[in-house]
Each structure stands twice: as structure tokens, then as C-alpha cells.
């Protein structure tokens, strides 16, 4: 199990991946927006996207769980 967490306070602009997707290392899962910048959140290992913990429009704090890859 790998956990993908937010690196900063941000708004979730776009959810790119869907739960159940097979993802590769480096695939974009969601795109955050902070300070007028888009920040893609990437899978850090290959696997199945077991759970997405955020939806579009959510506000995430630094360290918040974004996705779980199994």
C-alpha cells in the first residue's frame, strides 16, 4: 500500500484518475491548485488506485491523504 499525500494547502482542481485504475509510477492522479499554480499529484509507484480520498473543489491541508495505491 502506498499513500499519496498533499504537499501543501491547495484546492483540488481536477480529479484525473478513477478508483480501480491501473496506474504507473509518474501518472497524474489529481491536479491541485494553489497560488495560481496547477500542481499535478503523481503516483509514486505502479499499482491499482484503491481509493481516492478527495473530490474536485475540496480543500486539502499539507499532509492530507489524497490517494491510496495497492
Amino acid at each position: 500500500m502506498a499513500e499519496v499525500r498533499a504537499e501543501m494547502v491547495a484546492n483540488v482542481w481536477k480529479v484525473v484518475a478513477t478508483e480501480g485504475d491501473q496506474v504507473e509510477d509518474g501518472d497524474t492522479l489529481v491536479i491541485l491548485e494553489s497560488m495560481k499554480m496547477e500542481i499535478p499529484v503523481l503516483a509514486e509507484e505502479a499499482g491499482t488506485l484503491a481509493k481516492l480520498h478527495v473530490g474536485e473543489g475540496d480543500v486539502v491541508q499539507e499532509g492530507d491523504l489524497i490517494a491510496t495505491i495497492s
Partner: protein
Amino acid sequence: MLESVLVANRGEIARRIIATTRRLGIRSVAVYSEADADLPFVREADEAVPIGPPPPAQSYLDADAIIAAADRSAAVAIHPGYGFLSENAAFAQRVLAEELTWVGPPPQAIEQMGDKINARNLMHRAGVPVAMGSTDPVTDAAAALAEAERIGYPVMVKAAAGGGGIGMSAATGPEALQTAFETARTRAERFFGSPAILLERFIERARHVEVQIMGLNDGSVVALGERDCSVQRRHQKVAEETPSPGVSPQLRESLLEAGLRAGEAVGYRGAGTVEFLLDVRKQEFVFLEMNTRLQVEHPVTELVTGIDLVEQQFLIAAGEPASFSPQDVRHDGHALEFRVYAEDPVRFLPSPGAITQWEQPAGPGIRVDAGYEAGNKVTPFYDPLLAKLCVHAQTRDQALGLAREAVAAFRLAGPKTNLPFHADLLTSEAFVSGDYDTSVVAGLRP
């Protein structure tokens, strides 16, 4: 002179504009979103009106809320600062229709320069050099490929209605072009509400040099020197200086002349900036765009000329002559600006957060335009600019020395900042030598 001014902006620029209103005895009105209630600009204004929740669309971009705030505070003029509504011709028109004074250029000049394709065509007709590129919007990927073939790779792909480097990227071949085109189109729609794209010949070793102009009420346009803005990350400026170390006296003369011609072509009034790309190898420049507003980096021009550009904006908006005579403008010494951003100094990713310590440098030759102070919270809703650290000295070497000391003396804790990047920049061979181009940041952060 104007009796009162509403400042339709936030952070450092709102505070800087309010500083001039105080000096001139103009009543100032700040507007602020819920996220900004504790910032210094709100407290320093004579009056402050809340205009809505944190997202810009519901506050600083909400024209109705701003006009209502002007009504409520009986402000007679609106200064838009930069960003937000400053280059929105419809808003400028609305301000005038409400019988308020617009501290900015005629709405028509904003409109003509706002569309980059139109601006390019207009400049070409006025005899200002433009890069080979689109004369009409590029609407689909196939058209983009054909256009790139005509222009020749590498090409720059950007939003016609855009600015701030958003959605802009270079393509070296057909495959990269496809990606660049899609990115530009998505961002153009999202950020600027128009999918129109333009392609331009990309210059590989370029300096970004801009000319500060001022359109006066007698119809003349004055050029107040150039600024070098080649230190950029993600096509956004990080540090600026004047004079440009890459511009010879002869080249400067042609640049200033082209800046004047650009302003005259649109009947410009007030403060504006004409941006050029200078091909380092060929020593030729082309028109990039015109910013029809006060520029972020205007302080370096103020430091070497001794002219308060915001004061000139107020005078011109009030129908009065400028406070200086164009033939007496002198450029004294060298000035640099370093933008202090709330971002990590290596990857340049945003870093909002609470500011626990803020001790800024002070002393002769140092100017800090700050938007925040200790105890404030930097929120993710707006750009990451915390402060502009500016230095002024007789020579560039002295100014660099002063800047090194000032960067080291700036104590800021809470959000990560790019101050360590500025320290690196100030000791890098390329920057210190003055012989650098827009790739200087990439060279320092490979």
C-alpha cells in the same frame, strides 16, 4: 488632484498605492476579501470595505462588489493595481460609465493590447518589430501544425488573451507542438475565457527587456528607461534590474523609440510597459506584449529616476500634467528587484502558511514593498508574492553587494520562501557577470 481613490487590489501593491495617497493627501479606500482582513493594506487605508469570500471571482474580480464599495465609500476614482481587473477593458468602461475616474489607460487601449494577435498586427503596422508569427487565431491542432511549418521550429505557443506566462510553452517539433497546443488551449479557456491561440517564432537565447512608458495629457508619450526581466521561472519574473546589463546605448535608443511608437499607436495615457524579447546573438529585438497598467517591477524605475510612478498615474487620471518635465529625466545608478515568493527555493512549488517571523532589511539604498507582516497568514487563493526587495546604488557591483546583505538580513519564517534562491542567484557567475538570458534560472536549478 483626486479627492479619493479606491484601490481594487490587495497585498503589496495595494499597500504601495496607499503609501502614495497618504503622501499626496488623497483619501484611500481599500477593498478586501475575507482571507485578507488582517493584512497591512487593510489597516493602512483610510477606510476598508469587505467585498466577499476568498476566491478572486467572488471578491477582487467581482466588478459589482467593487463598484458597490466605491458607492458606499463615496470614492471618486478606482486604481486597479496589476492583475485582477487592471487589464479588463469592460471593467474600465464600467468605471467610466459610473462617472468615476479610472486610474489607467483608455479602455480602448486596453482592448487593443489585450488580444495579443491584434496587438502584434497593430505593432507591425506601426513599425515596431514583431517576431514571425500568427496574424489570425489558430483554432485547431492541424492549423497549428501548418502554421508552425510556415514559421519554422522552434515555435512558442500561447494564449491570445493570456498573460503571466500561463499556458505558454515552446515546441521544437510536430510532436511537442501537439502537446503544447492542447495545454495552451485548455489553460486559455480556463484562465482567460478564450481558446484563441497564437504561434510565434521562438528565440533560443533571449533577454526579456521592457520599456516603461508614460502617456501624458498633452498627447505625448515619454519613455522612462528599460528594465531587464530575464530572470524567470515558469515564464514568470523573479528578479529585475535597470539599466539592463545586456543593452548597449545604441540598442537602448532603438528600444525606447520602439516603446514610444507602441504607446503612440494606441493613444496611450498613464503608465504602461512595452515588453520586448532581445535576441542575444543577433542583437535584435521584437515586440512581445504591452501591459496596460502599473507593472510589478516598477520600483526599480522609481529608484533610478526618483519619479513616483503612482503619483503620475493619479495626476494623469485627474487631467493634470506630470510632476516631472520629460527633458529633465535622469537615470541615476543601478537598481534591482528581487521578488520574495512563498514557495520552496528548489522546485518553486507554492508554500502557503502562517508567518511566524518577519524582519525585513532596511537602510540606505534598500526599499522593501511588503504585503505581509508577522502574524499574517499566506493563503492559497492568490499569487505567492510576499514582498519585493529592491536595492539602489551607484554601480551594478555595489547594488549586487547591497542585495547580498539585504537577502541575508531578511528573516522570514513560516511559509518556505525563495530567499535562498536569490542568495544563489546573487553568487552565480552568469547573473553576477550580467551576461545572462531567460535560461539563467534553469541553469541554477537543473
